[in-house]
């Protein structure tokens, strides 16, 4: 199963992707978490720390400087540019580089192409994408099974998500799940649900402890496993693996 996590910048895509990835792994899936963002921070929310996250980014960037050998295959891409995260999740940074070599398995494909091209077999793939709707314009039908659209209850975020949802439907990109993050009250909930009347909206209540995890570079699952927000995302994980 392949999931893409998309949304406006700062809505919590990376935080959600990390909790989802680790929860699915705890439930027994073999999870590969792909950081597809050119500003990659997924490692922090998975719980591998700032230093290891920066090391992975450095590796990816040294491809451009010619200081890093290219990976000869998809499997080795996850080896070379990846790191083991808690709960058995394998993280790999696959974001676009400045000077890709055409045809190279490790940099010649965009993350969107990679998702469509590579056979992931029984693995569960969670792709954390760059902010905005560009990713959805580049994804092809069949590249992913589920699009998790993260939205916060602000006018701008809802507007971006509306455009994103149109793209998902128009391009038949798979099942759409709207994750309303940082929901503080009924007005917040209503702002999101009225914008998406025909879509499953999963609400993640605002939680100071998730904000705190982001502050200190920790995984929400480690800092606040029992936070309402974390539980809501974990419950979502269960429904994603069940047939739609």
């Amino acid at each position, binding site marked *: 199963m392949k999931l893409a996590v998309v949304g*406006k*910048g*700062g*809505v919590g895509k*990376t935080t959600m992707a990390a909790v989802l990835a680790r929860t699915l792994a705890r439930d027994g899936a073999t999870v590969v978490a792909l950081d597809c*963002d*050119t*500003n990659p*921070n997924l490692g*922090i*929310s998975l719980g591998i720390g*700032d230093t290891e*996250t*920066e090391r992975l*980014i450095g590796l990816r960037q040294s491809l451009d400087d010619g200081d890093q050998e290219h990976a000869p295959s998809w499997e080795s891409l996850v080896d070379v540019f990846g790191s083991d995260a808690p709960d058995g999740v394998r993280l790999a940074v696959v974001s676009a580089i*400045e000077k890709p070599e055409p045809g190279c398995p490790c940099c010649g494909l965009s993350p969107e192409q990679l998702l469509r091209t590579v056979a992931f077999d029984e693995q569960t793939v969670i792709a954390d994408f*760059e*902010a*905005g*709707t*560009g990713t959805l*314009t580049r994804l092809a039908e069949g590249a992913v099974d589920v699009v998790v659209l993260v939205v916060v*209850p*602000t*006018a*701008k975020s809802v*507007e*971006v998500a509306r*455009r994103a949802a*149109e*793209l998902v439907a*128009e391009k038949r990109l798979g099942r759409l799940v709207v994750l309303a993050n940082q929901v503080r009250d009924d*007005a*917040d909930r209503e*702002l999101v649900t009225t914008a998406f009347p025909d879509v499953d909206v999963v609400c993640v209540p605002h939680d100071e402890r998730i904000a705190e995890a*982001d*502050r*200190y*570079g920790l995984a929400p699952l480690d800092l606040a496993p029992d936070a309402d927000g974390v539980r809501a995302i974990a419950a979502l994980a269960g429904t994603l693996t069940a047939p739609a």
Partner: protein
Amino acid sequence: MRVAFVGKGGAGKSAIAGVVARLLARRGEDVLAVDSDPLPGLSVSLGLGVVEAVIPAAAVEEKAEGEPGPRFRLRRGLTASGALDRYALPAPDGVRFLQFGKTRASGVPLMRSQWAFRQILDGLPPEHPTVIGDLPGGTRQPFFGWAGYADTVVVVVPPTSAGILSARRLAKLASTEDATAAPSRIVAVASQVRDGSDLERVRQRTGLDVVGSVPWDGHVLAAEREGRSVLDVALESPAVAALVALTDRLAAHRPTAALAHRQGGAS
């Protein structure tokens, strides 16, 4: 003064840029606010709501085969200032607002509009108008020279690990990119600051000169929820007070003022 705001998504770039633009205009400056993000942002924070305006493709023409220069330039007879008169929209407090357009689900490619946007900014006379720019979140766009107009790049930094690491990456990019296009100054503004330790962490871990600190403020959240400017929702809020101070600080540092001072001192 030409300032570009950059930073991680959700750092508060648009909200800050929109208020700074309007505060400068209230002081009598001719302010152009520009948004190079294909997603809705700055227009909402200026108080204009979501704006669908697009710079028309016909604003540019393709250069002839073999002709030097960029692929597209403003069409014959259209100057950068003339294009502003045509395509910039009036925003509150007399600010003028320019965007190349917003991504639509099945919209036309915006390439020519993007070229027009870049050509207008590149063609403006050196000092006039004041430009306040809002860039997309993340680290990708500054690569492509989108902040070429800026004499000052302001990195907006929320006190989170991801926000701080993003700021460090951006500062590195801004200083190592094309040296001729490099901004003269890279500074930081801490956003969503809850206490002194937040501010100190931003200061220490970015290593940047922090020229402003905007407190976490429920008024900003309320404005964002409604899609309005915090200036129109809560003029007396702590966040607006901090943005007034930031505007003072940015205005005091303008290179032209520094230059005039130097020239004055030499005579």
